[in-house]
């Protein structure tokens, strides 16, 4: 890609203008100097200052004053400025110059009308000039003063778009001044003198030329001069061709004249010769310029071509970006700093149901129907996402609800917005991106409502269940307690009966009383065990750190009578420290040991209590050498009131193991039996290890 400026070979407008701006000042200074020198010459009668060479016409003193004034005027007006005192003075001087010329010119039209204006200064010295003609201001000088004064006075006056009268007048003056100067250069008197009148002095002609060039270049970027100073090809060609053509023509003409005067060749030959050389030189100039122009044009074309391809490339990219944005599933809307919409993509129109509007940002909320996620609360107009973005804030995935006549059912959208800034951080506006999330939102809401409902139901059920359990426990407790009352009556009075009338009744009566008392006792035991069972949950205290070996020994102590009766041998292995409720753990050991003693075989009971670390828990074992249990019953024995034997074989209520199971499970362990009939039973239960419990508590606390 070519980025070099296509017109780099052409001098820029500014540099030419800057170079030209030195001309008017220089011209002004030269004119003022000339005027002063001439007046100096008149004052002190220094001839070369007045006329340069003997035999030439002297400069009229008033002409010198006019030149001085013109120089001052040009100096004041040399740069375009808004009104100031010096510009005003410059214009006054210009008008004075114009009047001097005009008055003197009137004198030529009707003698005497000029009031002898050109004889006011040094009138006595003017007398008869060395040329033999009275020194007056020449008529062509008067005309040039008129033109010069007019062009200076009108310097900043514009008639039409690009028409400056000062320029036209200055050009006309330049031509006349050139004619006069050439007259001197080529020795043609008729070119600087008009008929019988006194001719224009040489310094006057040259100073006029200089002044007119100064005026013409005083406004280099305005009017016709703008064409010359243009940075484009036309200005380029003009700046090359014009000076070349002028210099070549002048030089050739002068050379030809000199040669002709010396007598090198005659007029016919001179004209032909000059035409030939002129053709050659001008052709060379044109060719040279054309070559440069061609080169510039080639560069220009190259630049334009690369510009074209750049443009095409940009257009393709733009089309691609637009296609991508248009086909995006998310709505994209861009607005400028004042809230005027710059862009809406297709998805944006589809989601919102509307397009860009002229409504001011204050009215967007109402126009597009923007609501909070609840679908009913209108969004605060000043907090609409795009407005926040324009104000420099960002919005990220905010859920909003849109409802307007085009989308009467409404839509939930997820809205994000960002401010748009240029490279320097200046705000350009904002962009908002939104996505239709209605389905997702509805599903989410359903799920949420469902969860709430579910949670409510769980709470309700749990409450019901807790109440039911509490009621049941209360019932079991009250029932077992109140049941004891009448039972006590039955037992007490049966026993009283037995005690007092034993000898007066027969054996049958004694047996009846015995069964009645036995039944009442069993019922008492049953109620007591039931009470224990119902108390496991209710009465269980906080687990504390305890030595399970010590607890086992306490249980053995409680069973002392049964142990002595059966001659049981109980051994306790190494037992760990654990967390448990001591009363309940003792109950477990007591029940298991009690069973082991009760269900002994022929031999006296031999019982081994031990514990082993297995994984994250301790496994306790109470192994006996008793009658054992058929594995098919290994589950049933842990249920309440489940018995495997007749009451007269092995007494019991069938609650002991159920109590054990309840206690162990409450402590986070499990209980089971490994046994075969006749081979003893091994009751095992697990309890969590201390470290594991501590670890869990730590992580819960954390």
């Amino acid at each position, binding site marked *: 890609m070519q980025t070099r400026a296509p017109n780099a070979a052409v001098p820029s407008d500014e540099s030419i203008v800057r170079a030209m701006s030195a001309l008017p000042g220089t011209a002004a200074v030269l004119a003022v100097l000339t005027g002063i020198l001439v007046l100096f010459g008149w004052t002190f009668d220094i001839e070369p200052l007045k006329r340069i060479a003997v035999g030439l016409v002297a400069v009229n003193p008033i002409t010198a004053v006019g030149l001085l004034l013109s120089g001052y005027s040009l100096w004041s007006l040399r740069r375009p400025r808004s009104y100031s005192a010096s510009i005003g003075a410059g214009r006054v001087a210009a008008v004075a110059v114009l009047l001097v010329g005009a008055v003197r010119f009137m004198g030529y039209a009707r003698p005497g009308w000029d009031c002898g204006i050109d004889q006011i200064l040094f009138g006595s010295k003017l007398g008869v000039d060395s040329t033999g003609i009275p020194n007056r201001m020449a008529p062509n000088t008067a005309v040039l003063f008129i033109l010069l004064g007019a062009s200076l006075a009108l310097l900043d006056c514009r008639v039409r778009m690009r028409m400056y009268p000062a320029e036209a007048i200055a050009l006309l003056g330049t031509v006349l001044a050139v004619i006069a100067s050439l007259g001197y250069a080529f020795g043609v008197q008729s070119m600087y003198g008009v008929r019988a009148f006194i001719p224009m002095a040489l310094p006057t002609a040259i100073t006029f030329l200089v002044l007119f060039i100064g005026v013409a270049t005083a406004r280099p970027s305005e009017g016709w001069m703008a064409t010359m100073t243009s940075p484009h090809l036309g200005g380029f060609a003009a700046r090359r061709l014009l000076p070349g053509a002028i210099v070549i023509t002048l030089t050739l003409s002068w050379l030809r004249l000199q040669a002709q005067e010396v007598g090198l060749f005659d007029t016919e030959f001179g004209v032909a010769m000059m035409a030939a050389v002129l053709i050659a030189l001008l052709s060379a100039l044109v060719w040279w310029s054309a070559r440069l122009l061609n080169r510039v044009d080639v560069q220009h074309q190259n630049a334009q071509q690369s510009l074209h391809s750049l443009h095409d490339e940009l257009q393709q990219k733009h089309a691609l970006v637009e296609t991508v944005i248009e086909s995006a599933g998310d709505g994209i809307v861009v607005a400028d700093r004042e809230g005027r919409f710059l862009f809406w993509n297709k998805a944006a129109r589809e989601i919102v149901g509307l397009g860009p509007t002229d409504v001011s940002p204050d009215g967007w909320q109402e126009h597009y129907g923007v609501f909070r996620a609840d679908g009913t609360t209108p969004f605060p107009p000043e907090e609409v996402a795009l407005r926040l973005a324009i104000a420099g804030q960002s919005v990220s995935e905010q859920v909003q609800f849109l409802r307007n006549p085009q989308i009467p059912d409404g839509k939930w959208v997820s809205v994000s917005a960002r401010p748009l800034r240029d490279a320097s951080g200046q705000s350009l506006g904002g962009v908002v991106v939104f996505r239709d999330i209605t389905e997702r939102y509805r599903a989410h809401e359903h799920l949420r409502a469902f969860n709430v409902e579910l949670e409510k139901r769980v709470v309700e059920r749990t409450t019901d269940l807790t109440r039911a359990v509490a009621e049941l426990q209360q019932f079991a407790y009250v029932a077992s307690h109140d049941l004891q009352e009448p039972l006590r*009556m039955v037992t*007490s009075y049966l026993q009283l009966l037995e005690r007092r009338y034993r000898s007066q009744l027969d054996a049958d009566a004694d047996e009846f009383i015995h069964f009645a008392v036995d039944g009442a006792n069993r019922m008492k035991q049953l109620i007591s065990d039931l009470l224990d069972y119902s108390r496991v949950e209710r009465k269980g205290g906080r687990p504390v750190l305890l030595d399970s070996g010590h607890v086992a020994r306490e249980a053995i102590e409680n069973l002392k009578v049964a142990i002595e009766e059966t001659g049981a041998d109980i051994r306790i292995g190494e037992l760990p420290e654990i967390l448990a409720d001591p009363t309940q753990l003792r109950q477990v050991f007591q029940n298991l040991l009690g069973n082991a003693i009760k269900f002994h075989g022929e031999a006296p009971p031999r019982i081994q209590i031990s514990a082993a670390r297995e994984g994250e828990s301790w496994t306790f074992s109470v192994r006996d050498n008793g009658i054992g249990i058929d594995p098919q019953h290994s589950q049933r024995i842990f249920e309440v009131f489940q018995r495997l034997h007749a009451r007269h074989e092995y007494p019991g209520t069938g609650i002991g193991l159920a109590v054990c199971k309840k206690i162990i499970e409450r402590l986070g362990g499990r209980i089971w039996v490994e046994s075969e009939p006749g081979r003893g039973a091994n009751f095992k239960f697990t309890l969590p290890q201390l470290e594991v419990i501590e670890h869990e508590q730590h992580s819960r606390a954390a």
Partner: protein
Amino acid sequence: MSNTAERPEPIEILLVEDSLGDIRLMREALRDARVSNRLHVVENGSDAMDFLRCRGRFSGASRPDLILLDLNLPRKDGREVLAEIKADEDLRLIPVIILTTSASEADILTSYDLHANCYLVKPVDIDRFFDLVRSLHGFWLTVVKYPAKDARSLAA
């Protein structure tokens, strides 16, 4: 040590009990223990307070040496009776023995909180019950020293 023979008056016992079976058992137990006593029985809490304060039909009631109080009573229950007795500057000197079927921790704690002198659970077995009454007599009516019935007025 004093014994029953040395006591000229039989011991006055107030039994607050609504179960006729228990009242009869108590009489039997006292007879079995051969205690010289006069057993007054009221069947509810408000009668008990009337008796102790000699009100209404109990205007001629004598002051008991010992109160046997059941907790679960009709009209005014044992806990209220206990609280009232122990709030009374004079009556609180009489030992109150709670005799009930309840072995509930809550009942035991409440009773001692209300300054019961002793809490006993009625045994199911008759022999144990008789033993209990015997030991009651042996301890509370023989071993324990009480202030004189009019001790407070004498001290004043």
